[in-house]
């Protein structure tokens, strides 16, 4: 957490460069290999599953074991706000925007109304 808030610490740049390279590699290869690949083939279905599982793991981890500032909000608050987001999401016919608004508002309200659980 040390360092300048705007520039951050120096050690972000190398991971950033690697992330940028592997991300563009996926897109560039898509253009280069284009017609020679079957996007509905088994390899890509497996790749999709791995990406989904990894992201689901990341999302669950961010809610259950947040590393950063979210840890300041108790687990109960985080789970309740997640339930509110998903509830509103379903009620509004799967609106990501309203679900997000409900989740954020829910978390803020819970933190304000019941700071003791923080």
């Amino acid at each position: 957490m040390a360092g300048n808030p705007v520039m951050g610490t120096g050690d972000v740049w190398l991971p950033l460069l690697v992330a940028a390279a592997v991300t563009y590699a996926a897109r560039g290869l898509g253009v280069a290999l284009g017609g020679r690949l079957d996007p509905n083939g088994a390899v890509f279905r497996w790749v999709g599953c791995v990406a989904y599982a990894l992201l689901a793991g990341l999302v669950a981890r961010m809610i259950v074991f947040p590393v950063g500032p979210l840890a300041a909000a108790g687990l109960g608050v985080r789970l309740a706000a997640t339930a509110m987001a998903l509830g509103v999401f379903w009620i509004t016919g799967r609106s990501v925007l309203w679900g997000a608004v409900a989740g954020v508002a829910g978390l803020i309200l819970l933190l304000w109304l019941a700071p003791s659980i923080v």
Partner: protein
Amino acid sequence: MSEPSGIARTAVREALGMPGLVLFASYLGFGSLARETGFGLGAGLVSTATGWALPGQMALVELWSIGASLLAVGLAVALTNTRLLPMVVTLLPLLRTGAAGRRAPRWCLYALAHVIAVTTWANAMRRLPDLPPESRLAWFTAYGATLFMVTMAGTAGGFFLAGVVPEPVTLGLVFLNPIYFLMLFAVDLKQRARVLALAFGLVMGPLLHPVAPTYGLLVTGLTAGTLAFVLDFYWSRRGR
């Protein structure tokens, strides 16, 4: 309205509707995360500009903030973003034809591929087939460029907001990151394999975290994802 400037204006208007609003909100979350983890504004903006796919960016910031190795970060981002490859492969045939039936130059496709991510891909797959082939490049370029600006503005906005709003609001903004993705997954629950991958990942992620904080995510993705893929394959075989 089929001349390029007219179609481009239409694309900008469409981009600034619901897709832009949702992307702006989610990047507000990313900007706040970049501030709260100490990632920084400069790095956050460079990540948005060069990554332009929130899942990989979130994995990058999260893993960096817990001090994961370069290899762990690179592998996690690669595993997350390889899903962009089939998106590019399926969208490109719709973009190949340039103005007046000429084929679009290759460098142009390489540049446009950079703005293929879940939002642009889903909307372009729906929208492009209805447009005359000569208008498609103009539509997609304007659509992608507009959303690119929106994400940059969202990243900067989230970073500055996180510094001035009260603490609970900052936490709310950071909280946008996981819940946005949770809902994005929930929109797309038609494929059994993905439902399984999601369910296994949700359980395995937190379970492995205390044991292996940095590589747990990679193990979760590979194990839970492969298990989902194999089970789905097995069940679809048996169902026939």
